[in-house]
């Protein structure tokens, strides 16, 4: 999986591309952990480029949310493809994460 990063109005945005599964889950967790220990981090994970997600990928997102929450911050999800969104809904995790159409809307929501 590829992960690109940019800042939008002091919000860090991670753009994921590829499959978020048991192979790439650790990569995402390490990336989020590497973002630093700044208080109240604001993070958007953009998944427009994610064409497959499984329960390991969902677990990595929950782990990332825990990491950021401990610092008083939050994670918002953007750009979910139809199929990936269906998995969030099926597992009820659409009630845990706030989901936006695109990264700009997610960044503005902080």
């Amino acid at each position, binding site marked *: 999986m590829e992960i690109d990063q940019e800042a939008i109005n002091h919000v860090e945005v991670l753009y994921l591309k590829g*499959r978020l*599964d*048991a*192979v790439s889950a650790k990569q995402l967790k390490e990336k989020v952990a590497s973002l630093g220990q700044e208080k109240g981090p604001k993070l958007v994970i953009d998944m427009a480029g994610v064409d*497959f997600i*499984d*329960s*390991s990928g*969902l*677990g990595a997102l*929950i*782990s990332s*949310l*825990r990491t950021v*929450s401990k610092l008083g911050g939050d994670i918002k999800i953007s750009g979910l493809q*139809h*199929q990936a969104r*269906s*998995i969030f809904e*099926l*597992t*009820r*995790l659409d*009630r*845990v994460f706030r989901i936006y159409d695109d990264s700009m809307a997610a960044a503005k929501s902080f």
Partner: protein
Amino acid sequence: MDPRGVTFVIDSDMKNVPLVGMSVNRLCRAASFSTLDAFHIELCVVEAVTNSIRHCYGGKTGHEVTVICTLTHREIVLDICDVGPGISPGVLDGAVIQNSPGDVADIEGIPEGGRGLSIIKKIMDSVDYRSEKGKNRLTLRKRLPEKKKGTG
């Protein structure tokens, strides 16, 4: 239509899991499942094979996982087979997606893992498990979509 099938045998390496998943996805689309259904069935196979590698083989490579795909006139049947410690009794029955993910304000209380079997049970029409003399077989079934009147 006589049953048709294809069998995949992979080494127990997580990097091989997408190969089986994507192949099953293509097979499902060829069998007239919708794109979304094919994605969901791919997900179930990925979850099952991942569980096999992780729990039966302890995440170690060098073991075989076999996925037998059988297509009949009414359903697709996927058998995921491994050799070793099987699923503990009661685990499959207890795998259910709760209506609520938990207290969303308490992220520590929301489990990071353990969703694989419950996702499989939610998506597939039936899920059966057999373990005999160390040979384990998880069987997943999904009915083909009904053909519209006047076609095929």
